[in-house]
C-alpha cells in the first residue's frame, strides 16, 4: 500500500491546477456553457487524488436541458476530458434517491437502495470541484457525504453477507478455490463498507487499494485489522481467508451500527461468523443458522 502515492481530494480549481499543471479556466475556454446559469464541476480520479498520468478528467455541466456527452482534448494539460450533462431535474432526483439510514440500523436486507450508477454519480458530484459560480446558487449539488457514506457502506454490507453464504456453501461442498474466491469477495465488500464509513465513498471496487492507502496515510484505519487484507496472507489458506472475511464483515457492521470496533471479531471456527442484529450479537453458522451469543459487544 505504501507504493500508492495518494493525494487528498482537490477542493478548489487552484488545487486542481497544481495537480495538472494547467488551470481549469483554460479548459472552460473550450467548453460550450451558459456562464450565468450552468454549474461546471470537475471530478474523477485526479480530483479524488487517485489519478495517474493516463487519467482523464470528468466534467459535469449542471444545466436545464440534457445534451449528448462528448469527449474533448485539453491541450494545456495533455488530458482527455469527458463532458456530461446533469440536468437540474436529474440532480434533484438523485438527491432524493439517497435514503437516510438511521444510525443504529441493523436491518441488513430490507432497505430500498439506489442503483450503482446513481451512487457512483452521487459520489463523483459530492467530491467535484466547482469551476463556475453562476448567478443563481439554487442548484449546485448538495449531497450529504455522511448519507452517501452510509448508503455505500450498507450496499457493500448486504453484498458481503450474500457472498459469505456463497463462500460457506462452497467450502462445505469441497469447492476450496470457489470458497476462497467468494470469501475474498466478502472481504472486499466489507473493506469497501469500512472505507465508506471512514469517508472514502467511491463505490468502485477498482479503487479499493487506493482507498486503503489513503486511510493508512491518514492513520484513520485500524491497521491491525486491515493490513491483513494483503494478497500474501489471503493466499495462505481458505480457512484463513474465511476468518479474515468474517472478522472484517463483523467489524464493518459494528462501525456502521454502533461506531465501534468489536473484540473478538470472529469465532474460532472458520465456517462461523458474528453478526450484529439489533441489540444482539448472533453466531452465524454455515451461512444461515444464527443464534444469540454472549459477546462483549452486548454487555453493559
Amino acid at each position, binding site marked *: 500500500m505504501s507504493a500508492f502515492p495518494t493525494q487528498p481530494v482537490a477542493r478548489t480549481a487552484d488545487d486542481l*491546477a497544481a495537480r495538472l499543471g494547467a488551470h481549469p479556466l483554460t479548459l472552460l*475556454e473550450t467548453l460550450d456553457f451558459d456562464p450565468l446559469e450552468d454549474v461546471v464541476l470537475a471530478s474523477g480520479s485526479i480530483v479524488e487524488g487517485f489519478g495517474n498520468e493516463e487519467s482523464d478528467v470528468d466534467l459535469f455541466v449542471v444545466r436545464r436541458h440534457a445534451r449528448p456527452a462528448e469527449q474533448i482534448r485539453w491541450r494545456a494539460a495533455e488530458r482527455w476530458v469527458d463532458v456530461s450533462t446533469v440536468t437540474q431535474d436529474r440532480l434533484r432526483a438523485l438527491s432524493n434517491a439517497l435514503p437516510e439510514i438511521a444510525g443504529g440500523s441493523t436491518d441488513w436486507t430490507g432497505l430500498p437502495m439506489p442503483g450503482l450508477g446513481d451512487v457512483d454519480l452521487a459520489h463523483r458530484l459530492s467530491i467535484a470541484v466547482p469551476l463556475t459560480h453562476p448567478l443563481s446558487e439554487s442548484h449546485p449539488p448538495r449531497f450529504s457525504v455522511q448519507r452517501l457514506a452510509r448508503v455505500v457502506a450498507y450496499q457493500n454490507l448486504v453484498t458481503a453477507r450474500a457472498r459469505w453464504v456463497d463462500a460457506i456453501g462452497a467450502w462445505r461442498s469441497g469447492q476450496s478455490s470457489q470458497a476462497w474466491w467468494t470469501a475474498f469477495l466478502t472481504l472486499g465488500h466489507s473493506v469497501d463498507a469500512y472505507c465508506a464509513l471512514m469517508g472514502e465513498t467511491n463505490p468502485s471496487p477498482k479503487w479499493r487499494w487506493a482507498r486503503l492507502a489513503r486511510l493508512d496515510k491518514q492513520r484513520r484505519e485500524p491497521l491491525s485489522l486491515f493490513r491483513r487484507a494483503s494478497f500474501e496472507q489471503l493466499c495462505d489458506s481458505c480457512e484463513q481467508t474465511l476468518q479474515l472475511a468474517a472478522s472484517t464483515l463483523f467489524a464493518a457492521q459494528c462501525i456502521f451500527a454502533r461506531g465501534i470496533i468489536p473484540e473478538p471479531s470472529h469465532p474460532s471456527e472458520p465456517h462461523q461468523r458474528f453478526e450484529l442484529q439489533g441489540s444482539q450479537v448472533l453466531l452465524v453458522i454455515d451461512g444461515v443458522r444464527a443464534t444469540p451469543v454472549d459477546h462483549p459487544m452486548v454487555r453493559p
Partner: protein
Amino acid sequence: MKSQPPGSFASTRLLLQRLRDTQAYFLASLDAEIEQLERKVSVSELDLVRSRAFALAYAGHEDLAIRSFDVLVSQKDGRTPRALNKLAQLLVRRGAEQDLERAIKSSKAALELARDDDHIERWFAHHNLAGAYLQRREFDDAYNAAMRAQEYREDPRTEALLRLSEAASSRDVAVEVRAQLSERGMISLDLSPDADLSSRESLIVVLGAEPVGVVYRPPSHDRG
C-alpha cells in the same frame, strides 16, 4: 444623426471615418491591456482570461472572445458590469437566436451589478438590450431599452437604434432587421429598401457601440 443616401460620397466618407476611429480606439485599448498586464506584480489565471477576452474582442475575434468572456463572467470575481456588457455586445453582434437571449440575460445581470452612478455601464447595458430586442423584432422593448439608454448617455448610436425601433413599431414591422456578420467580424443591420435609414448608417450605429472617446483602462473592468 442625419441620414445620407446609401453609397453616396458623404455616407462612405462618414463610414470610413467611423471605422478609423473605432480601430484607433481598439488599438489604444489593446495597448492599455498589454501595459496593464505587464505592470502586474502577480498575475492570476483570471487576469489572463480577462486580458485574452478583451484583447480578442478588440481584435475582432468574436467567437474566441465570447469563449473567454464566458469563462470570465462565470467567476464571481470576473463578473463585472464591464465584462457582462462586453459579452452582451459580442453576442448581439453575432446575433444568433441563442446569442440574443444570452445577451439580454447578460445585460440584465450587468444592470443588477452596476452602481447607480455608473452611467457608462448602464448606458452600455440598455444599448445592448435595445440591439438585442431589435434583432428579435421585439420593437417595443427595443424602443424602451433605447429610451433608457438615452437617460444615461446622449449617444448618436443609441439615437439611431431608437429611431429604428420607432420606425419598425410604427410601420408594423415594415422594417426588416437582421444581424449580419461581415468578413471583418463586424455587424450590420440589413434594412428593407423602404427603410428610412441606410444600412451603412446602421453599420456605424452598432459597429461603434463602444463609447468612443472613453478609453477604458483595465482597472476600470473591476469598477464596472
